[in-house]
């Protein structure tokens, strides 16, 4: 029983990692950039949601929508202002720019008087509710996270697999030059994917708010979502979720059964083992260059 409860808690937490990892995978799949500002986008999303509920007084689900739109706009703006000009440059430079964006986002949020440095909670309709099933408990927050994660993942994966836009985005990440030759609007798609990924980040931020609260540094949880994405292969959306679940469960079990401190590095140990056993992750593509 104890064990199953731990696994359930781990799965719930894992979904959160997976949800954030989705954002990483989205941007990577379309632009082959690792977005180090993903966590900060999430934070911006959470603050937008906070603004929508407390200042504008919108109901929860409306504020979620408002936050998604606002954060998507932020994503679009970031792309337009700082990523577009270096589109096509080596991935490394772009990664560095996203790190810069992360710094700025954190700094700017803390600069907002009163609000920025504080920790806030977001009122939710399901706060504190728990579901009991036999001896197992799972909180409503987690149930919502799990549901939303699965739906989002399914929808986005379908987009990449079946829609022309989705395939074109993969194409442009593999060979940008050829994408231009095909008439794929690389620049517009770069903006689009940043918008989508920012909206996903907003969802993550708002769903996370009851669990971790809203504050300027909440984005650091992204560091844990990284391994989740890698375990899944970094190019697979379902992989990101599976990776997140694995890390969540391992953490929960390690925290209970293993020596102190192991819980904190469990994610990283798992990812290392994964990379040694299967270097491209669980669902990563085979990467052999043919000469």
């Amino acid at each position, binding site marked *: 029983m104890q064990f199953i409860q731990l696994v359930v808690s781990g799965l719930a937490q894992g979904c959160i990692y997976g949800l954030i990892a989705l954002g990483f995978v989205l941007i990577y799949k379309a632009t082959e950039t690792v977005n180090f500002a993903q966590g900060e986008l999430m934070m911006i999303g959470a603050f937008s949601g906070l603004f929508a509920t407390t200042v504008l007084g919108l109901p929860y689900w409306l504020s979620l929508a408002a936050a998604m739109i606002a954060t998507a706009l932020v994503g679009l703006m970031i792309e337009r202002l700082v990523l577009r000009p270096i589109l096509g440059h080596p991935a490394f430079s772009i990664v560095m720019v996203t790190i810069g964006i992360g710094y700025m986002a954190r*700094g700017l949020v803390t*600069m907002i008087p009163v609000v920025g440095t504080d920790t806030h909670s977001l009122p939710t309709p399901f706060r504190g509710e728990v579901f009991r099933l036999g001896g197992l408990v799972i909180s409503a927050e987690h149930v919502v996270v799990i549901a939303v994660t699965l739906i989002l993942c399914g929808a986005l994966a379908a987009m990449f697999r079946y829609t022309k836009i989705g395939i074109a985005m993969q194409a442009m990440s593999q060979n940008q030059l050829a994408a231009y030759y095909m008439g794929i609007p690389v620049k517009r798609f770069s903006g689009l994917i940043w918008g989508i990924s920012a909206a996903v980040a907003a969802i993550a931020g708002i769903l996370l708010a009851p669990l971790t609260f809203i504050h300027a540094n909440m984005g650091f949880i992204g560091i844990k979502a990284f391994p989740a994405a890698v375990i899944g292969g970094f190019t697979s959306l379902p992989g990101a979720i599976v990776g997140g679940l694995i890390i969540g469960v391992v953490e929960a079990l390690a925290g209970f059964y293993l020596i102190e401190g192991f819980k904190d590095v469990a994610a990283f140990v798992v990812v290392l083992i994964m*990379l040694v056993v299967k270097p491209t*992750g669980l669902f990563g593509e085979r990467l052999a260059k043919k000469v």
Partner: protein
Amino acid sequence: MRFIFKTRYEQDIQLFQHSGQVFWYGLLAAVLLVAPLVVSPYVLTQLSQVGIYTIVAFGLMLLAGFTGQMSLGHAAFLAVGAYTEAVLAIAGVPFFVSMPISGLFAAIVGVVIGLPALRVKGLYLGIATLAFGTIVEEVIARAEHVTGGNAGLMVPPVKLFGLAFADGPPFYYLCLFMVLCAGLILINLLRSPTGRAFVAIRDSEISAQSMGVNLAAYKTLSFALSAAFAGVAGALYAHNIRFLSPDQFTVVQSIELIMMVVIGGLGSVHGAVFGAVFGAAFLISLPQVINALKPMLPQALAEATGLQPTIFGAVLIVVILFEPLGMYGAWLKLKAYFELFPFYRKGMFRRQKTFQKSDRLK
């Protein structure tokens, strides 16, 4: 641009290609040598810190820039060097013994961390090193008996031949000397077969292999060397900061170390040297510059929390946006401008369209 007639092969191989380089290196050396006479002790400590970071940057240039292996865990090597040095110094081991041991120990850890590099590339390697870095940080925090754990560890001043090299000029010159040695080693390696093998691995693993380059051996060597640089820097770091705690060596720190290399910019062999110096100077001086500018800002802004990361991020973005080749790239343009004056053409450095190509297949 300068045109050099070469009459002997040695000319191509020698340390300096032309008198211009000798001049700039000479100028840099002269400025650094007289620095203690003119600057305040505080600035001198900062200069030492720049020197220390320069050594780390050398190692990172070698690894990331020339071998093409990403490391997001370099703070771990710095930590290993620093803690080794601290523990040995506390035990009374003289510096000229403890410092090489610190470097060596970091190199050994580097080999271990380099092992996944044999199987994974690019992004995956980045994550693998990040994971290792986090684990090393945790190990240091846990090994309380040796490292003092999270409570931290005080480090005594450097002892060299019975003399105490506390802060101030002696320690500064020690750092300077180490930078010089490290720089020479870097340049020497890069202009010999080892350096070329690194470049080969970076550009095409398949053909490097077909040319007889043992990928495993050279990748491991590159990690070991880079870690050794960081380890030696860590030894100096321990004495400069004099208080070590695990949270000085986090992922964030690793990323800031990488930042140095990007900001500094990679170029030729000498580009790596200057890039490292620029990058390290940038990383250390930016907070100082921001502080210096504070009085000029409106009060509300100057006192705002989060001002520093905001500016830091903004500067980072601006540098990459306007000078993707880093500060060394900017320097080259400036130099070309003056050398060609008045024949400088406007479009000469106009940026071309560039297209990203997947490095998933390499």
